[in-house]
C-alpha cells in the first residue's frame, strides 16, 4: 500500500476510533496511545481528568481532522511535485535525446538538466514571487523575494490545506519543464551559453507573467480567483504548452534550419531512449494534471482519469492516422501520440468527463500528427523535435476543447452569488467560455511571439545564438561539452 494512502488511512482510522470512544463515554476518560512521530497524525493524549469539557475536546478533534486532511493533501502534492520533476529528468531529457543524432545526445539532455538547476535558483530568488506573489493583473510583485513568507503556513488563495512551500515547490517543477520543452525547437544547433541565457530571460519575462495571469492571485485570466477573462486551464495548457510551443516556432524560424535539413537524413539515433522518456512522461503527467487539483480528493481522481484516457486515445489517433497514411504504425508515432494527447488534456484534465477526455485525446493525436507530418513540410521550418507541432498545436487545441467540454459536474468552477454552480463549457450551455479561452490562448501566443523574438534578438546581439558550422558538424557533445555520449568503439572495452 502506498505511503500516501497509508497516512490518510491512519488519520481516518484514528478519527473514527476517537469519535466512537467520545460518543460512548461522553464525560468520561478517553485514553489512547500517543504515536510519537508526526504531530499531524498524532492522537490526543489522554485527558487526565474528567473535567476537560466536550467543546475543548471537539476543538482538538477538529484540529486533528484538519491535520489528517492536510497530511493526505501534502503527501499527494509532494509526490506530484516529484512526478513532475521526473517528467523533465529523465522523461523529457530521454524523449528528446533519443530523437537527435548520436553526436548531440548529451547536449540535448544537458539542456533539460540545466533547467532543473538554473530555474530552481531563479524561482527561489525571485521568480516564484513574480509568478505567484500579489501584484497586478499581469505580474506578481517581489513580496516573496528569497522566498520570504513562503513557509509551512498555507495560503488560502492557493490551497488551505498544504504548506505554501509545497505549493511553491510544486509550481517550480512546472517552471522547470516549460523552458525545457522549447529546447526541442533548436536542437542540434544552439550554443549552450546562449540557450541558458535565453531561457533564463524567457522564464522571467514570458513564463512568470503567463503563470501569474492564469494561476496567480489577481491574474487577468485566473478562473478560480475572479480574473477578468477567466480562462479554464487546469494544469497549464496555455501557461506551459502554448507558450513553449509557440516560442519554439519563433526559435526554429529565427535560428534557421540545421545544416543539411531537409535533404540529409537525420533519423533519431535511439527511438528506444525516446520510448522510455515518453513512458516516464505519461506516468509523470499524473503529477502534472492530477496534482493540479492541489489536494488529494475527488478532483484529483477526475484529473488523473481524464489524463490517462486522453493519452490512450491520442496514441490510437496518431498511430491510426499513420497506419492509414504510411501503411504501418510506428513506435515513434505511437509515443508521440501519447505526448500530444497528454498536452491537449492538460488544460481540460480537471474539467471534463472521461468520455470527453477520449474525444480530446483522439482529436489531438490526429491533429498533431498532421501538423508534424504535413504542415511542417509545407511551411518548411525546422522545428527539430516538433515542440510546436505537439505542444503549441496540442496546447491550443486542448485549450479550445476545454471551453467546449468543461462541465460543472466535474468541477463547479463558476458559481453565482448564491453559490450555485453555473455551466462551464459550450456543450453545457455556456458558449461564452470559448471567448475567454480564445483570449487566454491569444495572450499566450502574443506574449510568446513578442517576448521570444525580443529575447532572441538580445541574446543574439550579446553572445550569438547558433554554433559555428564546424561545431554543428562536429556535434554539440564535443563542441559544447567536451564529451561523447557513447564511448563504445573507441575504448578498449
Amino acid at each position, binding site marked *: 500500500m502506498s505511503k500516501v494512502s497509508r497516512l490518510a488511512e491512519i488519520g481516518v482510522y484514528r478519527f473514527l476510533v476517537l469519535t466512537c470512544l467520545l460518543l460512548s463515554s461522553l464525560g468520561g476518560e478517553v485514553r489512547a496511545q500517543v504515536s510519537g512521530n508526526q504531530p499531524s497524525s498524532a492522537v490526543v493524549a489522554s485527558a487526565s481528568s474528567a473535567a476537560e469539557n466536550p467543546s475543548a475536546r471537539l476543538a482538538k478533534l477538529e484540529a486533528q481532522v484538519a491535520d489528517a486532511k492536510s497530511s493526505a493533501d501534502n503527501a499527494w502534492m509532494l509526490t506530484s511535485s516529484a512526478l513532475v520533476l521526473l517528467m523533465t529528468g529523465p522523461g523529457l531529457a530521454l524523449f528528446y535525446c533519443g530523437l537527435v543524432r548520436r553526436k548531440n545526445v548529451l547536449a540535448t539532455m544537458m539542456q533539460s538538466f540545466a533547467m532543473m538547476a538554473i530555474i530552481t535558483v531563479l524561482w527561489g530568488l525571485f521568480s516564484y514571487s513574480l509568478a505567484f506573489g500579489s501584484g497586478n493583473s499581469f505580474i506578481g510583485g517581489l513580496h516573496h523575494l528569497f522566498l520570504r513568507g513562503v513557509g509551512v503556513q498555507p495560503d488560502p488563495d492557493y490551497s488551505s490545506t498544504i504548506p505554501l512551500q509545497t505549493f511553491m515547490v510544486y509550481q517550480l517543477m512546472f517552471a522547470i519543464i516549460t523552458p525545457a520543452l522549447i529546447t526541442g525547437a533548436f536542437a542540434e544547433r544552439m550554443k549552450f551559453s546562449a540557450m541558458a541565457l535565453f531561457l533564463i530571460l524567457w522564464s522571467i519575462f514570458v513564463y512568470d507573467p503567463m503563470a501569474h495571469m492564469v494561476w496567480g492571485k489577481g491574474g487577468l485570466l485566473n478562473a478560480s480567483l475572479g480574473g477578468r477573462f477567466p480562462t479554464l486551464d487546469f494544469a497549464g495548457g496555455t501557461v506551459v504548452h502554448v507558450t513553449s510551443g509557440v516560442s519554439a516556432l519563433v526559435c526554429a524560424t529565427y535560428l534557421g534550419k540545421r545544416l543539411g535539413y531537409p535533404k540529409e*537524413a537525420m*533519423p533519431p539515433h535511439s527511438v528506444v531512449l525516446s520510448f522510455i522518456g515518453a513512458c516516464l512522461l505519461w506516468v509523470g503527467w499524473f503529477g502534472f494534471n492530477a496534482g493540479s487539483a492541489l489536494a488529494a480528493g475527488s478532483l484529483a481522481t477526475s484529473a488523473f482519469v481524464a489524463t490517462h484516457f486522453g493519452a490512450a486515445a491520442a496514441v490510437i489517433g496518431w498511430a491510426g492516422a499513420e497506419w492509414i497514411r504510411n501503411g504501418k504504425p510506428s513506435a515513434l508515432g505511437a509515443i508521440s501520440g501519447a505526448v500530444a494527447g497528454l498536452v491537449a488534456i492538460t488544460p481540460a484534465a480537471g474539467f471534463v468527463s472521461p468520455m470527453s477526455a477520449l474525444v480530446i485525446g483522439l482529436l489531438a493525436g490526429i491533429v498533431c500528427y498532421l501538423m508534424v507530418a504535413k504542415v511542417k513540410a509545407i511551411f518548411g521550418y525546422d522545428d527539430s523535435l516538433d515542440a510546436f507541432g505537439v505542444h503549441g498545436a496540442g496546447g491550443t487545441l486542448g485549450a479550445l476543447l476545454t471551453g467546449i467540454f468543461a462541465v460543472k459536474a466535474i468541477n463547479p468552477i463558476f458559481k453565482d452569488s448564491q453559490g450555485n454552480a453555473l455551466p462551464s463549457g459550450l456543450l453545457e450551455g455556456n458558449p461564452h467560455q470559448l471567448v475567454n479561452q480564445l483570449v487566454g490562448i491569444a495572450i499566450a501566443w502574443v506574449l510568446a511571439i513578442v517576448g521570444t523574438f525580443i529575447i532572441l534578438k538580445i541574446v543574439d546581439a550579446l553572445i550569438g545564438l547558433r554554433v559555428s558550422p564546424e561545431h554543428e558538424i562536429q556535434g554539440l557533445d564535443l563542441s559544447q561539452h567536451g564529451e561523447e555520449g557513447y564511448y563504445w568503439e573507441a575504448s578498449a572495452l
Partner: protein
Amino acid sequence: MPMTKVEAVIQPSKLDAVKDALIEIGIDGMTVIEVRGHGRQKGHTEFYRGREYTVDLLPKVKLELVLSDELVDKAVQAIINAARTGKIGDGKIFLSRVDEAIRIRNEERGVAAL
C-alpha cells in the same frame, strides 16, 4: 611465399554458416568486421515523424582471411556455398596479394605465421 587475402562481404545472417564451413576445411583464422554497404541491392524506407528516409546503406559482414595460396580455392568455394541465397545482396569476394605476414608473439614470418 605466396599468400592471398580473401575479403568476403556477406549477409550478416550467413556469418555463422560461413564460419562453420571454413572451420570444417581447417581454416580457423579470420577477422570479422561489421560494415554497411550495397551493390545493386535496393534499401528500404523508414518513417520518422512523417518524414520518409531511404536507408540504402545496408548492414553487412566482412570477413578477412589471409591464406597460403593452395587453400584459397577451397576457402572461396566454402564461403560461396555457405553464403549464397541466390538473391541480390548475397555479397562479393575479393582476392589480393599479401606481401608479408608476421606473428607478433614470436616474429615468425610467411606462411608459418598464418
